[in-house]
């Protein structure tokens, strides 16, 4: 059984026909072609599929698309409307990216953190991003990039 859903993604309005029980991740990737958001575990453990719902990070692989109607959805493609978001620039510049598969989830989660807490300490960053798995970097440079982005915030969040 499919239903029409009206979704607001990255400030754009979309009408999609989605199966009942379709997850937001699959609608974003398969119906809207927003493939930046990734699936790695499919059960809400790794954070690769993180998107923002009204500014709050959620695991889109276990979040029903139907739950998102009437809410503001932000994906990695929607960060940084005037060029890259400071978090994205810092991740690229400071070695926080290796294979990059976890990166969209991390930058989205980190952008939400900075929105909520513009100058987080190391412990706060570690706690806020503990739900995102990275298998490559060992996390050092991810923490460093979020700290640097906080220091360079230009209101482009």
């Amino acid at each position: 059984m499919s239903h029409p859903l009206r979704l607001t993604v990255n400030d754009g309005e979309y009408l999609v026909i989605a199966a009942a029980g379709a997850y937001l991740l699959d609608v974003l990737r398969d119906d809207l072609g927003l493939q930046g958001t990734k699936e790695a575990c499919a059960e809400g453990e790794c954070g690769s599929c993180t998107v923002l719902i009204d500014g709050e990070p959620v695991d889109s692989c276990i979040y029903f698309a139907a739950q998102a109607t009437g809410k503001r959805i932000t994906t990695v493609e929607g960060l940084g409307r005037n060029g890259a978001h400071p978090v994205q620039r810092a991740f690229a510049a400071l070695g926080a990216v290796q294979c990059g598969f976890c990166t969209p989830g991390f930058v989205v989660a980190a952008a939400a953190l900075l929105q909520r807490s513009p100058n987080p300490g190391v412990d706060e960053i570690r706690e806020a991003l503990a739900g995102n798995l990275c298998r490559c970097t060992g996390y050092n440079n991810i923490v460093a990039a979020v700290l640097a982005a906080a220091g360079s915030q230009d209101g482009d969040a």
Partner: protein
Amino acid sequence: MTAPAPDTVGRSVGRLDGGAKVTGRYEYGVDASRPGMLWARLARSPHAHARILSVDTTAALAVPGVRVVLTGADTLGYLASRYVRDEPLLALDRVRYPGEPVAAVAADTQEAAEAACRLVRVEYEPLPVISSVEEALADDATVIHPDWASYWVSPIIRRPGGNVVSHASLRRGDTAALFESADHVFEDTFEVPMVHQASLEGRVAIAEVDDAGVVHVWSSHQYPFGLRQDISDILHIPLGKIRVTVTGVGGGFGGKLYAGAEPYCIILAQRTGRPVKLRYTREEEMIATSPRMGATVRLRTAVAADGTLLAREGWIDYDSGAYSESSPGVVSVGLLTLAGPYRWQALSIDTRAIYTNKAGCGSYRAPGAPQAVFAGESQLDRIARELGIDPLRLRLHNAVRDGDLGPTGQVLNNVSLVETLQAAADRIDWDSAGAGHLRGKGLSCTWWTTTGMPSSAYVRMDEDGTFVLITGATEIGTGAVTAGVAQICAGELGIDPADLKIVSADTGTTPYDFGAQGSRTLVQAGNAAIAAAEDLKSQMFDIAAAKLGCQAEELEMSDGEIRHTNDPELSLSVSDVARLGGTRGGLLGRGSYEQPPTPYDADSVQGAMIGAFNIPSFATHACEVSVDGATGEVTLDRYVVAQDVGRVVNPRYCEGQVTGGAVQGIGQAMFEEIIHRGGHVMNPNFTDYKLPTLSDVPHIETILVEVPSDSGPYGAKGVGEQAIIGPPAAIANAVRDATGHPIQRLPITAERVWQSLRGPGTAS
């Protein structure tokens, strides 16, 4: 390559793929698609070991949207595994692990393919299950591969029979006499379970067959040229009719070095005439792809009263699972790493890979090494403790130095173990007084290889003077290609790395490379890029010299200009040369590099596919832990790695390899274990298989030591794998220092530490 390093080398320049990755535009294997593409899915065995009596695909074929269902009968003679061809693409008469593919479906949608797999009816007759190495080696054990003698086998492999895949041995010196006369003999046994690479992107591939029968494969893979050879060997397709293009790779760590999803895509594409995509789920990754082998390590070490290591006897039985994949190569690594980077008068080591009814194991970053080093370095701390010698001093006393011989007789040069030991010990304040009750410090030392084998590159100059590096090397995330090799190549060309374009990892367009394995890319592909840049430059200088009326040898190139070395006014821009060059049909520099094999005493080993470490490098790990006496919980307070990288090309990505490797190693040390019951994986997901998160690990402190090699670019050595080896022993030694109790089985969980606190020698 001893030429002076250009000024691009040694700087943390950004990687060329960074922008695409942070914005979500980078295309991975999971993102790729082809017009008219079908989806594949594999029906898998629910049994660990069973005879197949019948397979009925009628119901599966009746599912709307299903285009084809193939079974073992359709894939006769299609055998995988590179060194012992023991793995049927689809099981024919028996299954040997839970999750083994028995049928392959291609359908219009993923849902239809999945539904069809559930409807493949297979009648099984269960066979006795071999769930451990011990059971596999019992005299009356069921033989998992009764037809082994009929398999194609790589000539070097030695095997006594039964459930042994391969057996490697090392004999040097008179161990018996040294054990007889030694002041002390220590004997220990260690257990290491299987762990998984757990790359966040799993295996995924697309195959398409054109009208001429040419197969084009897109795959998230580490070694496209090896994959092309695998496909040719498995499916009997001529090499020249196969093209492999590597997509973006969402992590590899050794798990994407061999054929995986690709052959299934190809046979389904051949049958349907449509492109076919196969993507493994996380559960399929965890139950049916090639993890790191588990191991039982037993070792005896003869030591003099002053702590001088004399001789070691060792036995490693690696659990290969039901198929061999890379285990015949990995067993030989066990010989070198169980000896460790120490001076020995005699060694006698035997390492075997053993078949069991679990998923076949493969390569995972520094394959074979963490198991051996956990044992060897843990025992060193026992020796130090019982002889009353400081563990740091014991290691310094026995460490290999320049000119020493390695375990198989290779001459060791540019040795840096002592430097790394001292650097790590200084950073962790090794000599400061004990940190207090239930706090402890630990050390471990490692050595590792920089794999050789060929790399080739072209450097092309386009009509407008743009430079393009065309390399067969694969960027799997390390930055070795899009940062390191790019910096090297750009530096040789005198341009900003950001201005270099790269085409890589496509057997249809790029020259051969031995792949992203063995910590080799920066060194070998870097040397090839230097050679190609030099070839291009010499062609450009010939053209410029003719135009300027001077000798080519008098010219140099930087910042887009070719200048006379003594008369800077005599110059020509690169774009001018490009236009001149264009009239000659364009310019293409070519470079190939292959290091001669490292000599060693070939008589000292048998059955070893790898007999020496090429451009060996060394590292020391040091850590500090605190243990909760009530719960056994271990907190990693500090973690330090001092690693020799020869020459730092890009400090940030070099450190990134060390920190990333260390955290994977910490995962193996403290959290990760594939838990089996009767061959079945009990934790096939990230909820129950625990990867380290930001809340589990401290900031990793890195010290990059630079003792240059003779043949790496500007002295560089391999970096990628080594840091994963040290953590289990360093942490076990720190826990032992804190509690007084040894830990001889991984992972070092709170429960295991709690048990050790409650009784001497009760750690299990």
